[in-house]
């Protein structure tokens, strides 16, 4: 009896194994290694919806915050590697170029609203930008009104400085500060070493008419200093404490109404409006003015740093399944509405659904009104190391243990050294 049972069990096991093997061989499957932890739930739901509709299995795995490269490196050498992954612009592509399928003839490339969102090199398309984001200074309009101003009063760096310093002067009377803490902890310092640093780089590229460089001059570093000084001297806390302040600290201060301004991006929308903390009427995003160029026509910093890549080393069937999945994502109603409504993404594809995100709407309004968006040039920063070194120098400067010259040196000399190291 026992022997018979064991035999049956063994047979069942063999059958189910071979069934799996057959299923794999016929249809292929999709394995997406997701970069954005905040969108994980929405991706899981979307994957399930696709499987239900087409029968193609879709696995979505999300790398923990800040560990995407590590996760991708180990996942891609496994026997079931991700078929779909992402890189962060041209510098990130350097690592993964050998693994990226040329998407020049893929259906999804034809769906892009502009070929600017394709990450191409030497005529081949290695990545497809899938989300456009904007960042700037998020304003709590209610508090700003309590202080006696409206967002129309802020049209330049001088205006911003005047308003911020006035709020600081009346801080005790008003009960809130101008800026939420410019935290320099690793969870928050990218707002300054990467996003804020984009502005001096952008204006220098504009002057020279270039889109990347092997040596930055730092023409507008004085303006970078001015805006950073403004942030740290008109903040909720003493500049010496900034090195320990996290991204959550900064957001919580803004949520608690302790600060009027909060430099961050459109991706913060869900965090700020969750649980009814703020309504759309309370919030606005204004450009980061640093006192350079035509400030009256400056828009938000808008761009793309997340590009989908298809793993060229995956099985033929899996590659096809992935391409189909991508096409479905950006053309089907389920796909586009999930991307827009559940994840809050603005996607650069023809079939895009309008996003409810108030910051995104503002960006399109500004562009429609003739303002020029500031492009994302931080994707051309030579390495993570450059950003980290700039971050350390900024932290030390904020705390008073280092001086601004160290920041300039990390910015300018560091750029040249790191560019050499990365491309030498």
């Amino acid at each position, binding site marked *: 009896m026992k022997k018979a049972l064991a035999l049956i069990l063994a047979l069942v096991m063999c059958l189910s194994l071979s069934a799996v093997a057959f299923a794999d061989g016929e249809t292929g499957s999709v394995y997406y290694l997701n970069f954005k932890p905040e969108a994980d739930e929405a991706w899981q739901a979307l994957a399930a919806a696709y499987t239900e509709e087409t029968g193609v299995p879709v696995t979505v795995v999300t790398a923990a915050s800040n560990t995407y490269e590590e996760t991708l490196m180990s996942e891609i050498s496994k026997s079931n590697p991700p078929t779909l992954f992402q890189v962060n612009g041209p510098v*990130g592509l350097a690592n993964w170029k050998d*693994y990226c399928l040329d998407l020049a003839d893929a259906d999804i490339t034809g769906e892009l609203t502009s070929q600017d969102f394709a990450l191409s090199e030497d005529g081949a398309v290695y990545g497809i930008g899938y989300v456009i984001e904007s960042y700037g200074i998020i304003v709590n309009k209610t508090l700003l009104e309590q202080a006696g101003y409206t967002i129309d009063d802020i049209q330049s760096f001088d205006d911003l400085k005047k308003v911020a310093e006035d709020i600081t002067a009346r801080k005790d009377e008003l009960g809130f500060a101008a800026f939420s803490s410019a935290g320099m902890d690793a969870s928050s310092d990218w707002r300054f070493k990467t996003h804020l640093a984009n502005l001096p780089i952008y204006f220098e590229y504009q002057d020279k008419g270039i889109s990347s460089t092997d040596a930055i001059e730092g023409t507008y570093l004085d303006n970078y200093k001015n805006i950073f000084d403004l942030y740290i001297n008109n903040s909720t806390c003493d500049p010496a404490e900034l*090195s320990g302040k996290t991204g959550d600290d900064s957001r919580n201060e803004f949520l608690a109404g302790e600060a009027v301004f909060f430099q961050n991006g459109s991706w913060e929308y869900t965090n700020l409006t969750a649980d009814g903390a703020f309504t759309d009427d309370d919030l606005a995003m204004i450009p980061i003015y640093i006192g350079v160029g035509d400030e009256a026509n400056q828009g938000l910093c808008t761009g793309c740093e997340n590009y989908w890549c298809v793993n060229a080393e995956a099985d033929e069937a899996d590659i096809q399944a992935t391409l189909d999945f991508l096409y479905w994502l950006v053309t089907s109603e389920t796909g586009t509405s999930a991307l827009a409504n559940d994840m809050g993404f603005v996607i650069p594809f023809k079939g895009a659904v309008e996003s409810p995100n108030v910051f995104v709407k503002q960006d399109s309004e500004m562009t429609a009104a003739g303002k020029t968006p500031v492009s994302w040039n931080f994707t051309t920063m030579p390495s993570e190391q450059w950003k980290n070194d700039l971050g350390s120098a900024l932290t030390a400067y904020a705390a008073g243990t280092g001086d601004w010259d160290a920041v300039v040196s990390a910015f300018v000399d560091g750029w040249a050294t790191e560019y050499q190291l990365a491309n030498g």
Partner: protein
Amino acid sequence: MEKTIKKFWPVFVIPTFAAFCIGFIWPFLQGLYLSFCRFTTINKATWTGVQNYLFTFTDSSFLHAFWFTALFTIVSTVCINLAAFAIALALTRNIKGTNIFRSVFFMPNLIGGIVLGYIWNILLNCVLTLLGKPLLSLHAPYGFIGLVILMCWQQIGYMMIIYIAGIQSIPTDYLEAARIDGASERQILWKIKIPNVMPSITICLFLSLTNGFKLFDQNLALTGGDPSHSTEMLALNIYNTFYARSGPQWKGYGQAKAVLFCILVIVISLVQLRATRSKEVQQ
């Protein structure tokens, strides 16, 4: 009995040996091979020869990390072992509540390194803020002291347990005979207790030396190498070499550093084992 062992030894040895080969020897050899290559993933490596090692020897950050790690290891090993031995002596004197004390001292060791790092980061930064001093990631000496405090707090309890076991295994006749002969407490400590716990000292020194050299989580969580890499220890330096810049050459450099690091830790622990083994006595 012996016959059966002779007959069945493969049953006992082979599974462990196979696990050892799969989990240790093979990856180690592969790592050694990769240190001579440029690669992004381990399946696709291009042989480049000794170039990676040449770079490593010219990299000043690696040298700095080495000296910082060496200093840290010496200071933390001394602190941990002195404190652990002192506590072990105190807790083998039949005081009331000894077991509670032992458990409490051992507890920090149950918390993972990265968690401890973040907890102590908050604690020490709060203290430094109250004192009006620069925070941990701004001032390298504070970062260093912070790391030592953190490691002591975590490791003392563990080493203490080993020392207690060592002290308890000293035959009581030795101690009684010494007391009858009129030896002072100090003489008993130096002439009887310490020579007899030498095996424990060997183990504890070995553990704290290698732990100090290999320290990674606590370093990452407490200071992250700030300010500007000055509190970056070897393991973190290797990690940063690997991930902070893109391009296949950096993976090779990181791998070469990792191999050198491994050899270094092996050499240091062998020297230490030989030195302390020679002081052990037969009971």
